[in-house]
């Protein structure tokens, strides 16, 4: 029997892009259930997503990207899915790369797969200088603290097996979650694999990380990495690293 896969798509005011994202997912793999987590949008995001056939979870107020994503993982856990894929609602993650992300999980060689923009060094993504430094610093820190080389810790394009779903349904940071979550996964003994992906330019909207917020972002994530390193994480049942 093939594994049941759910795509978790956090969305905040993405009515322009969300329809295409849901359609593309269905076109790539009709067996994948799509769950759009609407983080209290003020536009038609939820209605558009429903019209395109997605299951929609609407949050009563804005809880931030991490809280929204975790809602999807909790849904996946409660409904017995074997695999969860997380991708953004703005269309920057290409659903046609789904098979690449699912490969290591299907083979049973990883519990967490990250779609990395820098995995093989041949990616075309060239972020602005400041962001490139930030991405590199976090990648280096997580690699050192987690004991495995990670090339892209800020990627929101990931796949999880059942063990990973259980971990993140229980423990997932509420704001700016990706970097910290990667370290939590490594310290919990999940096996992590990275696959090279190409991310598309944002179709609509702007990145949620504005210049003003990047300082808070850097400091918060640094502090989180420090305390995650100070905590003890039980090795998960089923984690094989």
């Amino acid at each position, binding site marked *: 029997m093939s594994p049941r896969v759910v795509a978790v798509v956090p969305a905040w005011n993405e009515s322009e892009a969300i329809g295409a994202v849901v359609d593309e997912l269905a076109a790539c793999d009709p067996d994948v259930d799509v769950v759009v987590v609407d983080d209290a949008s003020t536009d038609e995001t939820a209605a558009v997503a429903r019209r395109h056939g997605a299951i929609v979870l609407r949050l009563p107020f804005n809880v931030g990207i991490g809280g929204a994503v975790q809602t999807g993982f909790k849904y996946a856990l409660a409904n017995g899915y074997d695999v969860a894929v997380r991708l953004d609602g703005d269309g920057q993650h290409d659903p046609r790369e789904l098979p690449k992300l699912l490969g290591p999980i299907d083979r049973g060689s990883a519990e967490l797969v990250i779609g990395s923009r820098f995995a093989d060094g041949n990616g075309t993504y060239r972020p602005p200088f400041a962001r490139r430094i930030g991405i590199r610093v976090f990648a280096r820190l997580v690699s050192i603290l987690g004991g495995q080389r990670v090339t892209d810790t800020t990627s929101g394009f990931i796949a999880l097996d059942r063990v990973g779903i259980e971990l993140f349904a229980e423990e997932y940071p509420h704001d700016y979650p990706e970097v910290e979550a990667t370290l939590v996964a490594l310290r919990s003994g999940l096996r992590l694999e990275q696959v090279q992906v190409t991310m598309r330019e944002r179709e609509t909207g702007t990145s949620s990380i504005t210049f003003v917020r990047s300082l*808070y972002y850097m*400091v918060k994530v640094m*502090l989180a990495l*420090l*305390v995650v390193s*100070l905590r003890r994480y039980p090795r998960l049942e089923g984690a094989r690293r």
Partner: protein
Amino acid sequence: MTPVRVSVAGVIASVLLILVILELVRGRRLKERYALLWLATGAVLLVLSAWRDGLNTIAGWVGVTSYPPAVLFAVATLFILLVLLHYSTVLSKLTDENVELAQRIALLEERVREDRSISPRVPTD
């Protein structure tokens, strides 16, 4: 000039503050988001306690001539006010969200009751 004893006491107190905050975050009793302002408080007090010339200079700027450590006290008070103000905004947001949640639950409860009374297979209570 700041007495050495005042400096030492200030350093010990601010280091303790920082350690307690880190331990609270590690034990998941304090979220990073709310720890940052406290950590900034601890860091500023630590710097001002240890760097005695700096404290004297700043005291000179604000016209405190007789007893520079009074500035430490003023800075600590300022930060405590900031933290309290921050908490007031957080509390206000939480209050709104709490009301929103209660209202949602009331509406959901009503909908569940209706669904049950329509469906004959599920017994109503």
